[in-house]
Structures are given as C-alpha cells and as structure tokens.
C-alpha cells in the first residue's frame, strides 16, 4: 500500500502510518489525559481529606444540609448515562449508525437531567443561605444543623461542596458539548467499524466524569452515616 492509499482511508490523519496506529495513539492519549484529570481532582480530594479530618463535625453538619435523595437520584441518572454511553460505543463499533446516534442522545438527555437536578440543588443552597461568601448566613433549622461543628468551618465544607461539584459540572458540560459533536459527526456517517475512536475516547471521558461523581457522592452527601 502506498501512503496515498492509506491516507485516503476514512478518518485517518496524515501523521499516522495506518488506522491501527492512530487508534492506539488515540487510546493512549485519552488514558494519559485521564491520568492528568485524576491528579487534578486528586489535589482537591487531598485538600478535602485534610479539612474533613480537621473539622469532622462541621463536615458532618454540612453534609446533613444536602438533600440525599437528590444526590442519590443523580447517582442513578449518571450510572444510567454510563450504560447508554457504553452502548453507543458498542453500536459505533458494530457500525450501527442509528443506534449510535440514539444512545448518544440518550446519554445527553441523562446528562441534562443530572445538570438540571444539580442546578436545582445549587438554587436551594441560595435559599438556605449556605453559599460561601456570596450568600452565607444560615438560619433556623439549617443553622441548627451546622452549629455543632462551628458555622465558620461549615463554610469550608460548602467551599469544597461547590468547588468539587462545580468542577465536576464543568466537566459534564464539556462532555455534553463533545456528545453533541459526536451526534453531528455520527449523523454524517463518519464512523466505521474501523474508525470509531472519537466515540470511544469521549466514552472514556464520560465514564471518568461518572466515576468522579461516584466518589463525590459519598464524600459530600454521606458523611457521618445518614441512615
């Protein structure tokens, strides 16, 4: 085969020798990227761990202000989206364009539901005045929950709540954008059983974002044993 023939192959970039090499490079690339993501969230988790250890009572109190039902529901939604994402990768691999698009859209819908619930939860925090710096001043029942651990330290809990879930949500939004791009690409029939790396790569990213949530949910919602 000559270079020209190879480059004519669909989805193949000029710098690669063949699609296999490109596929391997794409896969390694996304794994390396996910490692950097782990280090990124890792720094945040380390800081969280230290403050949770220092101010356990405050974190316990803060956790009890969150609505565990919403958190649990979102966990299920995200797990579901991981399933549809995996199905979409499988469909791309088997060359089933309709199913690929359908599962991608399903993933987007589930992602949208997650973000919607998250937005509602954020809104609730303003209602309860537990948004650090911007709207901080818990009253009544909320205050009673936070008081044992010290209201000032509960604020640190909520900083971490917003920083962690906020960064997670940003990752979700980026993921939604990538899904949309895939849908458009898939509708143009860009993928073949030999070339579906973008679906696979975005899939790995999406699973990673889900896994981060699997850690965030117990760390933020389940402190101190709820039930």
């Amino acid at each position, binding site marked *: 085969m000559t270079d020209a023939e190879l480059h004519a192959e669909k989805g193949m970039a000029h710098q690669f020798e063949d699609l296999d090499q490109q596929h391997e490079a794409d896969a390694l690339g996304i794994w390396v990227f996910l490692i950097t993501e782990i280090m990124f969230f890792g720094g945040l988790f380390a800081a969280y761990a230290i403050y949770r250890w220092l101010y356990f*009572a405050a974190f316990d109190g803060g956790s009890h202000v969150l609505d565990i039902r919403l958190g649990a529901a979102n966990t299920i939604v995200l797990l579901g989206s991981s399933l549809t994402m995996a199905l979409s990768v499988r469909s791309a691999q088997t060359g089933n364009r309709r199913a690929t698009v359908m599962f991608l859209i399903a993933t987007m819908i589930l992602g949208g539901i997650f973000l919607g619930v998250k937005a509602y939860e954020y809104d609730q925090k303003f209602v309860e005045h537990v948004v650090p710096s911007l709207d901080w001043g818990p009253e009544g029942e909320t205050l009673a929950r936070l008081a*044992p*651990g*010290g209201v*000032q330290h509960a604020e640190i809990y909520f900083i971490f709540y917003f920083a962690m879930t906020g960064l997670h949500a940003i990752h979700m939004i980026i993921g939604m954008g990538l899904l949309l791009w895939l849908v458009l690409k898939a509708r143009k029939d860009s993928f073949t059983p030999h070339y579906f790396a973008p679906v696979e790569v975005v899939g790995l990213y999406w699973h990673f974002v889900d896994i981060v949530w699997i850690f965030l949910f117990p760390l933020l919602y389940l402190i101190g044993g709820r039930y």
Partner: protein
Amino acid sequence: MQSLPFQPVQASSIAKSVDELYLFLTVVTLFFTALIFSVIFYFMIRYRRRSPDERPKPIEGNVPLEVLWTAVPTLIVAVIFVWSSMLYFKNAEAPKGSMEIFITGKQWMWKVEHPEGQREINEVHVPVGRPVKLTMTSEDVIHDFFVPAFRVKKDVLPGRYTSLWFTATKVGTYHLFCAQYCGAFHAGMTGSIIVQEPSEYERWLAGGAAGESMEQAGEKVFQSSGCSTCHTPDGTGLGPSLLGVYGQPVKLVGGETVTADDAYIRESILLPKAKIVLGYTPIMPTFQGQLTEEQLTNVIAYIRALGKSQPKQKEEGKQ
C-alpha cells in the same frame, strides 16, 4: 580578600557545629567541581580532534568504574545525611529549663514579650550563656525568625505556635531578619538580638519592668473575658478547672487523651468545640477574633502558672 568576611559571626552554641558541616560540604563541593573541571579540560586537550575523519572506538561502559562512581557519591551523601540529621535532632528540642520569650510577628515588626512583662519591638534582649526558647506566632501572614549569627531560623505562622531555641555565646548585637516574604516592607522587618552579660540583662529587666508580668496580664484577660465564671478553681463551674492542668494529660469525650500544651490550650480558646473534656458539655463560645495574639499568649502564660501552682499535681510537665 581580607576585607570580605566569608563567614558570619558565630554567636550561639550550635553555630560552630553547623559551620563545621558547612565547611565539610564546601570541601566536597570544591573537590568534585575541581575534579570534574580538570578531567574535562584534560580530556578536551588530550583527545582533541586531530583529523576530520577520526572515528574513535565506542566504549559501552565499564561496570567496576560505574559501580565506583555510584558508590562513592552514595557513601558521601550518606555521611552528610547522618551527620546533618544527628546535628539537627540534637538541636531540635529546647533544653529543659530554658528561659522563655514570646514573639509575635506582624506586618512588618517583631513584638517581643518577656515572661516578667517587659515588652520590646524589633529588639530582643537575652542573657549570654543561657538557653532561650522562643514561642512564636503571627498576627497576619507567614513570617520567619532568622538570626544568622545563631544559625537558627523558624517560620512564624498565623494560627499556631512554632518554637525555636538558642544559647547565645557571645555578647553583642546581632541581626534579626524576617526570612519569609511577607509583603511590601518585608525588607524592613528586621531587628536586633542584644546579647548581654547576665548581670547586665538583670539590670535591663529591672529597668524596663514598669508593666505587669505576662502571667498577671493573662489573669486580667482571664477575668475580663469571663473565663473565670465557668473555669472556677474548684471545678464546680460549667467548665473544667484549670488548676494543675498545664502539661498534664486530659481525657476527652470519645476516649482520646491529649496533653494540655500551648497548642491545645490555644485551640480550646479559639475552637472550643474541637476537643471536649470528658464530663463537660460543648457550650463554650469561641474567642476567635476577640483576643489578640498577645492576649492569647498571656492567658496561656497564666494557665501555665496555674498548672505550676497546684501542689497535688506532679511538678514537671513542661515540654
């Protein structure tokens, strides 16, 4: 070269031993630098290219040589590590019976308080030949207490105590520097350590002692902030009695035991709910933001004195 002083004054008990290590390191550095430089120069002359088409034989390596130059640096750094760490550990803790001075760093000055009540700013008077332990904290950002002549340095952190000790060995006035960048006039956060003969130091103490001792000042704060209403001496108040507590183990709710040292007392004042003494309820309000760092150290000095005044308890307990 005589006019350039290459060594700072040695004015503390540890300065000489640190300088010996420094000298050893300097010799190691100069030796290896000279070795590498001269070998390179020799090779570059000896093996200079004589004709453009020279093709020297490749040398893959030489196991004994490589083992040697792995082992020698390893050995040297091992010696340095052991030497240095032993020196560091030997000097890590202040000797028992050191006299204490309290330092508060603040942008951009050093506030100094002697237990007898003398206060000074940017000057620390100390007697020669007596170990001095500094307990230090900061009111704002991180500072660093550095006395080159003593070869000692320690960060001064907001929200916690750090300590440092030295025994001055030479009468004189020495630089005190802030060695952690702390803002606009960081370079101006300097002062002097004034080392005096003990008799002269006593005179200085007596001369300036118009004010009350730290302990007395602390007792006033203890009364005026309302601590004394709950922490009654007989233990019948809402809070535990503080008599004889200092330096002793305290049982906490939850079964843990902590030692009532400066850090614990500080935390109990600022974050009363962090560690609750067994048998008491967490009702104490926080004094965060209500007491200055100096008032805090004074209260701690007072509680420490209460610790000594109780004959029932064991007398030692200073750490």
